[in-house]
């Protein structure tokens, strides 16, 4: 059974990945630099929020990795696909949290889900009936 701590750790791992990925995209593709910078700032702030939540629970947060396997990044289209995939993973992680939390934490998770669903669109996804669900 997934606990709130497990789900927050999963979310943090994905935020670490986002903080790693977006500078890479911004540096490689001029046309995506502005968008990648905005995404980086958003995810850096979110990572810090999730870190704080885990520390408040008395948990040692998962560490960032040296690099991540996000697939090929040799074109803007591939970069967009990597970003969409990552944001979809974050949507799923947020939705997991919705089901195992209540009140304020659930509300926070729903807001986070809506934010990642918006980010999916920003990186080129089509609207879906149920973002985050399998």
């Amino acid at each position, binding site marked *: 059974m997934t606990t709130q701590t497990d789900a927050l750790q999963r979310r943090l791992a994905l935020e670490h990945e986002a903080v790693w990925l977006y500078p890479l995209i911004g540096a490689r593709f001029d046309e995506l630099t502005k968008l990648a910078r905005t995404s980086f700032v958003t995810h850096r702030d979110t990572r810090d929020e999730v870190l704080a939540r885990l520390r408040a629970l008395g948990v040692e947060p998962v560490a960032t990795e040296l690099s991540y396997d996000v697939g090929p990044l040799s074109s803007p289209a591939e970069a967009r696909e990597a970003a969409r995939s990552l944001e979809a993973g974050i*949507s799923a992680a947020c*939705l997991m949290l*919705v*089901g*195992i939390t209540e*009140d304020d934490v*659930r*509300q926070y*998770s*729903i*807001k986070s*889900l*809506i934010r*990642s*669903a*918006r980010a*999916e*669109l920003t990186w080129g996804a*089509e*609207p*879906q*009936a*149920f*973002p*985050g*669900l*399998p």
Partner: protein
Amino acid sequence: MAAGGLIGGAHATHRLDDLADAVGLKPKPQPDPADDRLLRSAATAQAALLAAVEATAARHTALELAQFVAIGREQLDALGGSTAATDITPPPDDQAAALTALVTAYRSESSARAKQATAAASPELARVLASMSAGLFQCARTVGAA
């Protein structure tokens, strides 16, 4: 029959299980009665929204709203609703005003589903309603960008 009617009475006990099955989640055996009311309310609102999207799509064909009609039907199906006998205000004749009305409706329903998700006792229902909220938000953004 209004959308909520399909969910009431003897259907209520199984409705959340059906909903969970529809979206690939593990069913919960005994839904909270309050969750059935939430589900009925969400289905009724979703039916009205879908009717509004369909009416706008029919009146303003240039807007190409087919994907939003499909999304609305998928969401309503998951809630077990029906669009039969749903009364709505006709969309504005002006295309821009019709778009604005749709964006407003999507935003409003997105907020409503988020509140219902927060209140839901069942984790499965909370997830479905939260996900719907995010999907409706995406629709608002996409329609608004048209």
